[in-house]
């Protein structure tokens, strides 16, 4: 608290905000931002430690690339502005690589492909999950996600699409009987709906195609001009896949659902 008010006094003097000069340091140390919790990709343990598939893989990549990495937790809305303002050097936070997004960010090679799936109440009358079947139905998605774009383009004219800020709100609305189906990242649906209640099930097709919508998988995001850093991460990714480190981490998090999420080749 004391330092905060010192900082405040400084801010008053300088008028622009407290300035803490620091050198960028040796190129070997980088900061990676992530938005928690997004189980099992990134989350904090009850003790407060950061963990998850992204975190463990990220640490393995850093070790391989001989980088000293530290993690920064950042809310979603500030995560890309923060990258652009150089508050940190990379984002590893379940980001799907799409053509639209490549215009703004540089991505690593995909490090995992997570499919999208339909989640419905167990007593659903849905069977085909196509245009006719879904006509007039209320479909939940997370706003702006690849799933949102897909259902909006495919079924937007016939079904009623409801866009939510987060998946937990979808779970609440489904239990209130206001939704017929949710279309989500498979692990998200798994952890917010299937693991929480036996009233829901996964049904219909599990999708990773077409790439136009579902992208090529999750990637690590950098600023457009960070080509070298992206290359180092790509090399490290190839190396951990070869030496079995990747498989170890993968099995730890997706061992029992290995058929649902497929490793990026």
């Amino acid at each position, binding site marked *: 608290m004391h330092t905060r008010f010192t900082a405040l006094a400084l801010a008053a003097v300088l008028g622009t905000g407290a300035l803490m000069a620091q050198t960028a340091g040796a190129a070997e140390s980088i900061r990676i931002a992530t938005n928690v919790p997004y189980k099992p990709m990134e989350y904090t343990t009850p003790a407060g430690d950061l963990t998850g598939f992204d975190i463990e893989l990220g640490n393995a990549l850093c070790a391989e690339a001989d980088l000293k990495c530290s993690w920064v937790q950042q809310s979603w*809305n500030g995560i*890309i*502005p923060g990258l*652009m303002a150089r508050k940190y050097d990379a984002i590893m936070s379940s*980001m799907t690589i799409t053509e*639209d*997004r490549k*215009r*703004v*960010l540089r991505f690593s090679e995909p490090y995992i492909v997570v499919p999208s799936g339909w989640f419905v109440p167990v007593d659903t009358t849905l069977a085909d999950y196509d245009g006719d079947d879904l006509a007039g139905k209320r479909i939940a998605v*997370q*706003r*702006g*996600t690849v799933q*949102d*774009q897909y259902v909006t383009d495919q079924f937007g004219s016939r079904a009623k699409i*409801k*866009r*939510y*800020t987060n998946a937990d*709100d979808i779970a*609440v*609305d489904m239990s*209130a*009987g*206001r939704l017929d189906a949710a279309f989500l990242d498979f692990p998200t649906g798994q952890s917010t709906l299937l693991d929480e209640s036996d009233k829901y099930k996964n049904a219909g097709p599990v999708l990773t195609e077409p790439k136009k919508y579902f992208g090529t998988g999750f990637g690590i*995001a950098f600023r*457009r001009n960070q080509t070298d850093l992206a290359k180092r991460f790509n090399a490290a990714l190839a190396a951990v896949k070869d030496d079995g480190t990747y498989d170890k981490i993968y099995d730890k998090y997706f061992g029992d659902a290995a058929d649902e999420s497929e490793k990026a080749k």
Partner: protein
Amino acid sequence: MEQWLAHIAPFLSDNAIFTPSTLAQYWQGLVRTVQLVFISLVIGLCLAVPMALGRASGRAWLNAPIWLFTYVFRGTPLLIQLYVAYYGFAFIDGIQDTRLAFFINDPVYPALLAFTLNTAAYTAEIFVGAIRATSRGELEAARAYGMSPITAYRRIVLPSAFRRALPAYGNEVIFMLHASAIASAVTITDLTGAAYYVYARFYSPFPAFIFVAVVYMLLSFALQGGFKLLEARMLRHLKPG
């Protein structure tokens, strides 16, 4: 310079973000935002005036419950009020079979309910303050003229209180416009909802949010201009001299 240019460039040349489909989202969002804010302000104002009178009346049985209402609605975040209105009512047993089902099945109604009650609470407090600040001399003069308390309220207290409350109420209207941005939390695609959509789809925060900021700015310029005109008419005699 190149860093800023890199952010500005997408605006100028690479116009992949502002396609007809995203612009349509922004337009729908604009319509929704204006709808929500306008309706809740009008109803809220109608509720606030009687509440302010009750609060200023000095009768405890009137004052206390209204005070509690304004305390709770001003004391808790609008987001929580919105959540309770949208998710809370949905869990009442059998509500889907009643005539009230329309109310919970379209998120716009719960949002209107929360916004209206919220702005009513803030507006009522603004008016109470203004009524209480009426100078005793004005009221004594009214009584000396033989006005009944009701006439005195209608002709003397309320007009002068309303004039005094005008700048603060102008703030409240703008607050409401900005506060309506949380409607996107209950699946309504308002202006901010459209900006979130574009941000999430293109991972491009600055164009998405600067564009929406300009739209909000135009809306609030219109509102602020309206209040300036209103003030010029009603507060002419109060110009500092």
